[in-house]
């Protein structure tokens, strides 16, 4: 892969990430311990220490469109072991939020974003997760793709759903709380604040 590296983009990306709470990427000396301990590297297209290196080099789109940032399961092993105490798992959160906001999520990882959005929509409406509704919402958006990719998964999920109903583990109706408008208000005010932040 070839990429054009410019001084201005190097400084601005590192600063942007730091301002968003992703830490000082300059601290990383590329020892690779994070990648050595990461349980999901085999699913990644860029190793965790390489993500940090790409940011050091200002390669914004390469990082934000990578599979890696969405493959990361937030297990915190990297953060726990980093000899420089750099919080790589937190960096991944910052990168995911940027990738989401800018519409740069890797096509192969879109299901995760779809799931997160279905999850948060459920919380926003009910105050708590309504698992059945959330899973239905997620399945409606992903089932067609899944049927082409691996139809067995649909069957297995259906069986799991049946098992959960049978064991009385899925609520059929949402457990709506008294303060659901308060929770909705939290979502509204966070959105307003962030919109104002982007304008600045």
């Amino acid at each position: 892969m070839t990429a054009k590296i410019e001084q201005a983009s190097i400084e601005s990306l590192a600063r942007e990430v730091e301002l968003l709470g992703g830490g000082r990427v300059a601290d990383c000396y590329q020892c690779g311990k994070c990648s050595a301990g990461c349980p999901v590297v085999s699913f990644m297209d860029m190793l965790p220490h390489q993500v940090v290196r790409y940011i050091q080099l200002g390669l914004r789109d390469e990082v934000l469109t990578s599979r890696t940032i969405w493959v990361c399961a937030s297990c915190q092993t990297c953060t726990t072991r980093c000899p420089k105490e750099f919080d790589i798992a937190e960096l991944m959160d910052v990168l995911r939020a940027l990738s989401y906001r800018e519409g740069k999520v890797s096509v192969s990882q879109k299901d995760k974003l779809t799931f997160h959005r279905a999850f948060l929509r459920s919380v926003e409406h009910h105050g708590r997760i309504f698992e059945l509704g959330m899973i239905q919402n997620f399945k409606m958006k992903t089932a067609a793709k899944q049927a082409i990719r691996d139809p067995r998964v649909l069957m297995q999920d259906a069986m799991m759903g049946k098992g959960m109903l049978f064991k009385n583990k899925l609520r059929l109706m949402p457990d709506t709380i008294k303060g659901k408008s308060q929770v909705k208000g939290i979502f509204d005010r966070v959105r307003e604040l962030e919109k104002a932040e982007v304008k600045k």
Partner: protein
Amino acid sequence: MKVGYYPGCSLEGTAREFDISVRKSCGLLGIELEELDDWSCCGATAAHNTDHLLSIALPARNLALAERQGLDQVLSPCAACSNRLITAHREMEENEELRGAVEAIIEMSYSGKVRVLNYLGLILSFGIDNLRAKVRRELANFKVACYYGCLLVRPPKIVEFDDPEDPQSMDKILTALGAEVVDWEYKVECCGGGFTISDPTLVETLAHDIIRNAETEGANAISVSCPLCHANLDMKQSAINARFHEKRNMPVYYVSELVALACGATPEEAGINKHFVDSYALIR
């Protein structure tokens, strides 16, 4: 002993037996749980993967509720919830500006007085000797692989609980219940957490390695203290078997179920009947 109780969404649904067994075991031990009135979701992975401010504000509402209810200690059995609650608490403690912003968002104040406990921490503070004294039926047939996973022990600077690489709290609890604990390699490996539905390939691969290692090291059961770990090891075990063309039946228990069982609860009172993998063989 009285503590606040934040069940979290999973414990009302797919992890119902975690809720059942936490309440039952605490009842048997004489620990009084006071549920947080009108608690809401902590936002879980979905919030912290997509929106930092939201990921602090959602748990903060629950911390503020606890404070309003006069609870200085809150039990949050779900590892993911407790991790998010503690993270929110710490970030607000360290960043006055953030705390102000979050208070405005949740329209409640939080002075930072709530201590969040996971179930293992609760039992440790109850005392291993006190637990030992409550055992009515030793778990003699059990050779357990204690599986801690990620969020109970990591990141250590945030959760400040046990050893992040070789934790011992669950091992101590199960030993007190009369079970044998095995030494194994996957104690703190990741099971894929919240990707159960959104990335089955990844979850089944990781969970398969965990179950296989437990078996290799001589375990006949796995003990967990997290709803995500339980879903990925128990509920997904048939899908894992199908993917890897194997026929394993490794029972996966919540540690609270084992505490309840050993202290005299029936298997149903402990919630064992809700597992996907049959978990009765070791009890009879």
